């Protein structure tokens, strides 16, 4: 992902650009300033959308003709797994998959295939990534983001928007906002993003938005404790809900008492993370954290 730092304006391919979501969001991304170089939809090759964006039948053709460095996937769920494999096969360095509803066993296989490649997948079921006033590769409302030095990462889309809005309102712009997605298995973990923010010279502090279920916040806490030397603020949603119980006894055996909001908050605190107690305190908590180190 480090190429995001050095590439000020990635070349973006939109898979599914001719669909409803594809047309809408590629237009919004263009308006935000994103350099969309091509679209791909099977059977629609030869068309142009948004005046001059060429559409290709396949990702391979789009790559040959336009050399994209990022693929934004906006295809419906039943076709998204294939779209991801197509982008991996074309050796696109970064895939941002917005699509919600990819079967979890597909994601297991995708993860296992990604291991042997140079491709990074962000998502699925995520709002995408945004570098304020530079580019938006996703579906977030661009207006709430401002340029600055906060690295923002979230599983939830709307909570990422909420956090960005609070930060921007208080004058804390963002270096980059990355939605990793809410699915049980996703391409990029908190830890991957934290590593990027930790090394990114444009990032001074980090805001991590989590929620109950799974143990990815606990894994993030481990990494923060060991490696992150920038202030981190976290908010965990679902504090008054029972932990996700979908996996029944078997899940409980695997995850134990991890996965509850209390356990996540405790682990993050122990790793030196500032905790925003409620949803309305995210901006304020960051303000305090960043004052502390100055």
């Amino acid at each position, binding site marked *: 992902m480090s190429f995001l730092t050095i590439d000020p304006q990635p070349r973006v391919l939109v898979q599914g650009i001719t669909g409803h979501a594809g047309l809408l969001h590629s237009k919004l991304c263009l308006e935000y300033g994103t350099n969309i170089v091509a679209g791909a939809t099977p059977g629609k090759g030869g068309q142009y959308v948004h005046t001059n964006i060429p559409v290709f039948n396949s990702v391979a053709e789009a790559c040959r003709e336009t050399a994209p460095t990022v693929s934004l996937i906006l295809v419906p769920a039943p076709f998204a797994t294939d779209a991801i494999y197509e982008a991996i096969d074309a050796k696109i360095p970064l895939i941002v998959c917005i699509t919600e509803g990819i*079967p979890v066993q597909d994601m297991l296989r995708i993860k296992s295939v990604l291991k042997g490649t140079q491709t990074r997948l962000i998502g699925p079921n995520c709002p995408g990534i945004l570098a304020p006033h530079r580019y938006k590769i996703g579906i977030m409302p661009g207006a709430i983001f401002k340029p600055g030095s906060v690295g923002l990462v979230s599983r939830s889309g709307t909570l990422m928007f909420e956090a960005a809005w609070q930060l921007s309102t208080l004058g804390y712009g963002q270096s980059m906002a990355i939605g990793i997605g809410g699915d049980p298995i996703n391409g990029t973990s908190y830890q991957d993003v934290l590593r990027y923010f930790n090394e990114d010279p444009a990032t001074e502090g980090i805001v991590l938005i989590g929620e109950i279920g799974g143990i990815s916040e606990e894994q993030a806490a481990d990494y923060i404790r060991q490696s992150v030397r920038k202030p981190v603020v976290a908010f965990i*949603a679902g*504090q008054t809900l029972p932990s996700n119980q979908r996996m*029944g*006894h078997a899940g409980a055996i695997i995850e134990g008492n991890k996965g509850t909001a209390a356990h996540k908050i405790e682990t993050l605190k122990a790793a030196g993370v500032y905790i925003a107690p*409620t949803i309305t305190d995210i901006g304020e908590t960051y303000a305090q954290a960043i004052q502390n180190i100055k």
Partner: protein
Amino acid sequence: MNLHEYQAKALLESFQILIPSGVCIQEATPENLATVKGTFKNHAQVAVKAQIHAGGRGKGHFKENGKSGVQLVSGDCLEKAITSMLHNTLVTKQTGEEGQKVNAVYVTEVFHYTKAFYLSICIDRAHQCPVVIASRQGGVDIETVAATHPDQIIRIPINPSIGLCHFQARAIANCFQLTGSAYTHCIQTILNLYKAFVALDATLIEINPLVLSDQQQIVALDSKVQIDDNALFRTSISPSLVPIQSPTPTSTKEAPSSIIRLDGNIACLSNGAGLCMATLDLLHQLGGQASCFIDLGDSASEQKIDSILDLVLTDSQSKGVLINVFGGTFPCDILAQRLIQKIQQHRPTKSIQVRLEGNKSEEARELLKTAPVPFMDDLQQAIQNLLRSVSL
């Protein structure tokens, strides 16, 4: 998607996993009762089991008659047992006080066995792979075994590119301390179970207990199967297996615009699972109790918004309504517009607080200026207003 016991067993049987013989009844018609009696005419006793999406049925009771959700009866009392369950409401440790309505009853043979094991396959999120969990202590609360005898539980991570290997199935058969034909049949059963897990796009298959029969065969005595909702578009499950009563939702993540019922008096309307949960958290932290919470999702249609507003504005359990939406793709102005119209239509007496931000929120603010509901900038303030008027 949760499946009922009888549905799960029918699926497992199609993957060559042995199950006790059983018949499912959804209406106590004379024909159905005759079928059941015919099937079990050589059995001194049968088990009659209420089909709900929760555990603890044996120790649970029916609201209407106090009877248990699992009854062992002789042929004479079969009809009585069935009618004590069908269309009544079963309360167990896991259903909560409201219980669950029983729309199907499963009658099975009383199966004799010599040993009981635990076996499940689920997704290990931390290691990002399927995992098989096995214990030679089956038929009991496996979480207790995990806590008290962790050494009696084995976990075998599966490489999804290879699937479950023979050596891994052997490790489980060894854990069960089986030999001879039981060992061989156990390995085959485990391999079949993993095939079922993949072919059905399951997120969980739990067999508790998995038993060793007198004939040294491995039989799935009870089973729980969860299918990935995201895979239903391709899972070749007969439509008849789609649950006849909706499962208890425990997550807002899986079904956009799902409605979760709770015990309080404030209806919460939000978009995105994270924002829903965080809003609910804040409501609770400020002393409120939600009657329900509804996830509008990312791109609700006007029709859907209307039906949700109809429900919320006319709901007798809700004294107040909290709307907290952060528009990404979702346009706040449409929501504001529909809200204004629905308030005019229903003229609700409840208190309503609205906080909208993001996509088209300025337009929404303009629209709401003329409406009887205030547009709030501050969520804390909105909730406090609501709590004040609800407590009046």
